């Protein structure tokens, strides 16, 4: 399979301090490839640089050095016109941790779906648009009456997160970057979101980069896992490789300290 996303020697250095400069390497010489239809997890504890890396791929943050290649285009050098950018937004989509922060509280939730329709060149008021919206909501298991015409505060986090997935379904991006998409949701509703990701990948070949600090969820849903530590990817492999034969000390320690359901620690 061809790589859809290629990250080459990517680094991001943050400078802080006025008189005494200090440098923080948030992302440190990271390279990897993602193929079509893969679910790959980027795990690491807070401050390991995983969100910074996701932001660089999304073109929200400029890298200090290195390249991001998406479908053979250099994301930070080749995209120049508005049309280029629109092409990129259509193909690379993101879902973030806090669904309440992803919506503008002054507008009804319909707006994010309408914007998605505009992006793919459909008039939001047309009959066809209405049908697409209904289909997308059906896909994520929401009734149109349940959510349309409502404001974000009237809906639960799980419902909002599903609306964002409905938007992704409308756009059908090639790459979906999900940054902690379930960590604010209740455990009993997380499975629904995970299931939707799995269908997106199977049906539409969407590649999913799943950024998370929760090793458990990454382990259950991913094809491959990257473990990030202090800005570097220190280990990568299939979930079972990582769980059963971790090689790096940090990974070993991490796995040993994640509490599990059917194994009890001794104190």
């Amino acid at each position, binding site marked *: 399979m061809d790589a859809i996303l290629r990250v080459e020697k990517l680094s991001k250095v943050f400078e802080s301090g006025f008189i005494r400069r200090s440098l923080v390497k948030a992302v440190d010489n990271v390279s990897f490839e993602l193929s079509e239809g893969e679910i790959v997890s980027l795990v690491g504890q807070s401050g390991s640089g995983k969100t910074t890396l996701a932001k660089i791929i999304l073109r929200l943050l400029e890298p200090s050095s290195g390249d991001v290649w998406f479908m053979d285009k250099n994301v930070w050098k080749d995209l120049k016109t508005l049309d280029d950018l629109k092409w990129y937004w259509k193909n690379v989509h993101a879902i973030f941790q806090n669904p309440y922060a992803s919506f503008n509280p002054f507008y009804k939730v319909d707006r994010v779906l309408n914007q998605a329709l505009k992006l793919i060149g459909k008039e939001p008021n047309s009959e066809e648009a209405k049908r697409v919206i209904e289909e997308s909501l059906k896909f994520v298991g929401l009734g149109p009456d349940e959510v349309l015409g409502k404001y974000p505060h009237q809906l639960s986090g799980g419902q909002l997160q599903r609306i964002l997935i409905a938007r992704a379904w409308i756009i059908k991006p090639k790459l979906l970057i999900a940054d902690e998409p379930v960590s604010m949701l209740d455990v009993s509703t997380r499975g629904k979101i995970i299931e939707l990701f799995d269908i997106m990948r199977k049906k539409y070949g969407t590649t999913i980069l799943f950024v998370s600090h929760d090793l458990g969820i990454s382990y259950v849903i991913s094809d491959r896992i990257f473990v990030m530590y202090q800005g570097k990817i220190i280990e990568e492999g299939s979930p079972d490789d990582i*769980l059963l034969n971790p090689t790096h000390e940090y990974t070993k320690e*991490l796995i040993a*300290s*994640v*509490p*599990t*359901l059917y194994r009890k*620690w001794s*104190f």
Partner: protein
Amino acid sequence: MERLNISNLSAYYRQLIVNKEYLVKAVDKVSLNLMEGEVLGVVGESGCGKSTLARAVMMNIIPPLEYIGGRITLTTREGNVLELNKLTRNDLKKMVWGKHVAIVPQDAMSALMPTLKIKRIAYDIVRSHEDSVDYSTVLEALRNRLTSLGLSERVADMYPFELSGGMGQRTVIAMATLLSPEVLIVDEPTSALDVLTQKTVLKTLMDLLKRKYVDSIMFISHDIATVRQVASRIAVMYAGKIVEVAPTEEILQNPLHPYTKGLMESIASLEPEVRRRGIKYIPGQPPSLINPPSGCRFADRCSFAMDICRREEPALVEVSPDHSVACWLHIRR
């Protein structure tokens, strides 16, 4: 020996929305007990009333929360029985809180006054219970506690900002139990910490029990995988009610309530068997606690719901030794 007995405890929030009063039934007829030497885990999802339960058990009731009814009795080491629900707030403050029952609430570290050293804060805590205690006694007790719980003695001389998240949480726990209360309630003690430090906090809690600084612990959390590491029994809470209580291994191997089952199957645990079977979810969302359904509160999300479930509320009934469940599927009529 039974340390704490909670029977039919109800505590509601009184809410005023546009001149209309609503009662939010956050803790509704909850019955639980806590035995000497045990950790009781209370698990539930956000908004199920578990933090309210923690406050209600201590009778720390401040408006808009209201005590509606129920009995809470605590048996002290000397064998005295205190009925918490009959005591005034002043008596509770002077005689009960900190001495017999202590709480480490969520985000407990924010209770540390940033301009005072830890030893000074500890002195203030003890002084509020024993007027005549002198500083050096408290300081010595604090230093002993810190070292026996695996923290450095130097922590006493530090300011709160000098402590890391895990160390801070352990210090707060050490200070809350300085007077060796019989019962300790901890509310989400590990959820703000990363996994590597979570374990040290759990170890501190177990040390408290081992050294008999506390007699029993009520461990409130949303994370069953964490709770199961320390709890000998687990109570599952849903929409203000306890739906199932059983010994830890029993509830994990043989969950009876459909909610407990669904919850267990939704957990993405780092274990090969979980990856093989995948994770499930419970459709729908919890009911509003303002006007909860008259029957079983889980009925709308339950795939086994029968007629009676929507009509009548199931009581928490012991179906096998030590295993209680509130579900019509398991109650013999």
